[in-house]
């Protein structure tokens, strides 16, 4: 059966399906041809995909061949592959705001401020990489939450503390006073939350947005 497909076709399939790319030498050994022949076929394949009728192209990174989408259409591609934020709900936002302004603080603190459970929101925000946590030294060693560097990057509000500080935020509201100091401290929280890229998950979960032609 496989005789029907050309060697170039097999090479194409190998490059497309190898998760972390594949070396030309390995292509050669799998197909059972010489490396020099692989390089020739590769050149052909590369040329083909360079054409404007293809949206992907071959790149060699660290000696491994992989297909990449072309940079010029990144704005389209990023819509299916990079989507961490669109799914933020308003309650998650609210929790994020609390953590941004008052963190580091425990889940319990968040819930006291909001007057309701915030567990799922904190979890989701962690997954999105917007909130980080670390173990505290408080009794029971609860986690302390604060916004991550990704949050700062995204909002470009590394001087959030400064913003809030100047505000008549907590007239007579003690707990707000105390929180001011917290904000300046954004050093030592480990932002490590998400073992796998949060985008990955977000992507598969996304439903169709229907923004077609309004």
């Amino acid at each position, binding site marked *: 059966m496989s005789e029907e497909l050309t060697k170039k076709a097999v090479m194409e399939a190998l490059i497309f399906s190898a998760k972390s790319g594949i070396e030309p030498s390995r292509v050669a050994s799998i197909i059972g041809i010489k490396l020099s022949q692989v390089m020739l076929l590769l050149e052909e394949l590369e040329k083909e995909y360079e054409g404007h009728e293809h949206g992907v192209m071959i790149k060699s990174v660290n000696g491994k061949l992989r297909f990449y989408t072309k940079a010029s259409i990144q704005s389209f*591609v990023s819509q299916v592959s990079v989507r961490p934020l669109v*799914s933020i709900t308003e309650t998650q936002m609210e929790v994020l705001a609390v953590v941004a302004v008052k963190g580091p603080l425990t889940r319990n603190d968040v819930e006291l401020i909001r007057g309701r459970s915030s567990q799922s929101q904190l979890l989701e925000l962690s997954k999105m990489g917007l909130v980080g946590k670390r173990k505290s030294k408080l009794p029971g060693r609860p986690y302390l939450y604060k916004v991550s560097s990704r949050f700062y990057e995204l909002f470009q509000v590394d001087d959030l503390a400064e913003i809030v500080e100047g505000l008549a935020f907590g007239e007579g509201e003690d707990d707000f006073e105390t929180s001011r100091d917290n904000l300046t401290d954004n050093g030592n929280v480990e932002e490590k939350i998400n073992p796998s890229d949060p985008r990955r998950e977000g992507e598969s979960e996304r439903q169709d947005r229907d*923004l077609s032609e309004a």
Partner: protein
Amino acid sequence: MEQLELVFSFPEFEGPLDLLVYLVKKHRVDIRLIPITVIADEFITHVKKMKSLDMVVTSDFLVMASTLMEMKSKALLPRISNNEAEVFDNQRKELYRRVEEYKAIKDLSKEFRVRLYDAYSYERATAKPTVDQERKEDLPDELTEAFKAILKETVLRERVYTIVSESINVEDRMMQIEQLYETIELHKFLMSLESRSEIIVSFLAVLELLKLNRYYLDTVEPLTLRRKIS
């Protein structure tokens, strides 16, 4: 000898329906063409054989056996009323329907098995998105400045723990913006919103729209978002 033969040709049955499907199949005709008395007899014979072979006969089998016996006796009654006849007929139809349905399920599970193995012949072929480092999540300065200013103003007006009952997410807001505005004067727009979280959601929506190239930012004061004409 007969015993031995039996062991070899005697499949194990998952349940009474399984056995019924097997029996019907041996007749090689539509189940509706087989009299209930025949089915009942065969079923009971088989259950007896199962017992004699020390096979596990669960209560499901016994329940089905007694149902079939009951149906058989009804079928053999010389005279029954119209009403009874109808009830019996329905009962019979229901049994046949169940057997057919179960048979279809079994066929489907075979089909699934084939599909599952077939699926292993195909491997996902993917390409990695090229990430343009430059504009990963860079926002125009003007935009963030505007956002910060507005955030500041609302923080003044509002407590952080204000509980907002309405719930809107970024996606919905993007859609609203696209439907409602050709151009948006950013400051005015954001200031018209009630709560801080609504502002943040709206701001994120604006960011997304910019990233998706649906709008572009006109940085001549006042900061304005304009729809892209494609």
